[in-house]
């Protein structure tokens, strides 16, 4: 029962390995199935149709915008959650993470009742002449809503691991909080921020339910790639499969960017916490556990 701590222990029970193979198959097999279904002869025309290109372009644009929004909104939030000390801090953290587990359609409804015509802010927006529903802005809002937790989790993890030693030193040397944040904190959390941003982008790219509920579906305006796939499936399964493959390819590229290279994104920045970067793997911070 007692294990000696310092020795790396590599024994894995056989049944665990068996189940691991099974679990890998759960993910890999459907991907193989979709590749097997692709109509390669028509692949290029299918993925370069006007509606497909519109959808892909819209998806990339909106995902980039929502990632940017996630960074702008997420960095302060993560900083406050990791370093601040105020009442209901834990409650706030739980609430912020809620979109991770919420069915996207619920998120869509929540956004509708916030920004919709008859929503919480609907009257105020109408006075200002802003219409959000059925616009590209609605798509970006929906994506930001579901993707923000990924950035906050990644960043909060990086902030906690990083500790505050360097900041403390900078402060004792007379640097005001603004300068400490810009010159010390920001460079330190950059790797965590980058992996969080990549994850947010990936989540935005796959957003479906909230967009469908809140933004609607119109070519070039609100019909992102996942919505286009869902629609094409009605009449042209070949097109749906081809577009699915495009989305899978983009997702693979994004995941590879975040985790694939040895060292990953986490290694680009300074690692003030040294090599002992073993820590509990929260979903977002997992990118940092590379040794």
């Amino acid at each position, binding site marked *: 029962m007692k294990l000696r701590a310092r020795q790396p222990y590599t024994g894995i029970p056989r049944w665990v390995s068996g189940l691991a193979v099974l679990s890998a198959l759960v993910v890999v097999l459907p991907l193989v199935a979709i590749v097997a279904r692709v109509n390669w002869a028509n692949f290029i025309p299918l993925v370069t149709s006007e509606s497909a290109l519109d959808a892909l372009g819209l998806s990339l644009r909106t995902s980039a915008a929502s990632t940017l929004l996630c960074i702008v909104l997420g960095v302060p939030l993560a900083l406050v959650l990791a370093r601040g000390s105020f009442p209901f801090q834990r409650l706030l953290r739980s609430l912020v993470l809620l979109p991770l587990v919420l069915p996207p359609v619920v998120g869509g409804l929540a956004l509708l009742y916030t920004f919709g015509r008859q929503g919480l802010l609907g009257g105020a927006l109408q006075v200002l002449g802003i219409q959000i529903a*059925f616009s590209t802005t609605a798509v970006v809002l929906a994506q930001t809503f579901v993707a923000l937790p990924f950035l906050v989790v990644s960043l909060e993890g990086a902030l906690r691991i990083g500790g505050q030693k360097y900041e403390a030193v900078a402060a004792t040397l007379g640097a005001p909080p603004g300068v400490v944040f810009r010159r010390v904190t920001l460079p330190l959390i950059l790797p965590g921020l980058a992996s969080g941003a990549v994850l947010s982008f990936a989540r935005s790219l796959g957003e479906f339910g909230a967009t469908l509920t809140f933004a609607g579906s119109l070519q070039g305006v609100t019909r992102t790639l996942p919505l286009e796939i869902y629609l094409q499936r*009605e009449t042209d399964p070949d097109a749906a499969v081809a577009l699915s493959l495009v989305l899978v390819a983009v997702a693979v590229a994004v995941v590879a960017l975040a985790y694939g290279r040895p060292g990953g994104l986490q290694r680009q920045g300074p690692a003030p916490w040294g090599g002992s970067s073993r820590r509990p793997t929260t979903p977002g911070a997992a990118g940092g556990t590379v040794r």
Partner: protein
Amino acid sequence: MKRGVTTAVAALVLAAGLAGCAGSSAPAGSAGTSSDDAATTLTVFAAASLKSSFTELAETFEAQHPGTRVSLSFAGSSDLATQITQGAPADVFASADTKNMDKVTVAGLAEGEPRVFATNTLAIAVPAGNPARVTGFQDLARDGLRLVTCAKQVPCGAAAATVADKAGVTLRPVSEENAVTDVLGKVTSGEADAGLVYVTDVKSAGGRVDSIPFPEAGAAVNSYPIAALSGAKNQEAAKAFINLVLGSDGQQVLAKAGFGAGGQ
């Protein structure tokens, strides 16, 4: 301690997984192995718009045929047709359009000719009180009016396009939804000023939307065909159910939901 927790979690996950598997395979198994009262299950795949009427008819059928249980599965017709051609164990298929029924007949999975049991036409749905004061089909093309329709790829969108074409009106919807229920949702929530849905959808929405009938709707009448499937375990029960739908009891229930009478 920690290990205990891990084991417990693993066991839970495993148990949940097994329970899930058992749950999904149970209906097929129990139908075959039930011994005493020879209870049979009739599985009916029906278009989503038939939900309330077919639920009522299933109860009537069970009352008329003691020992037979009707299991209903509602979804979009194209989803159901795909499931049937992929081997889903259904006994009866009721589609919201002929196109999706054709997929099943072409695959050789229908038993006999499908029969049309109901029709449905489009109506304009507006939020309760009609805030944008829509009075007819021409109004839908008005500048600044937020119209939502189905996409052309789905039956309700194809019908909308046909009607607009015949009426010579160019529609510029702010959103083209995948399902008629999504269109209705945008209207009930007040986001859209008007939506093109079926007469039956307006009925099912109760007082949350007002309906504006328009004569141009006659240009696109949607037929609902029904057929027994060749894979049906109990052909007799399947035929009996279809007869109930086509008979006066069935037609009465369907008319109450807003459907037009079937032609054949």
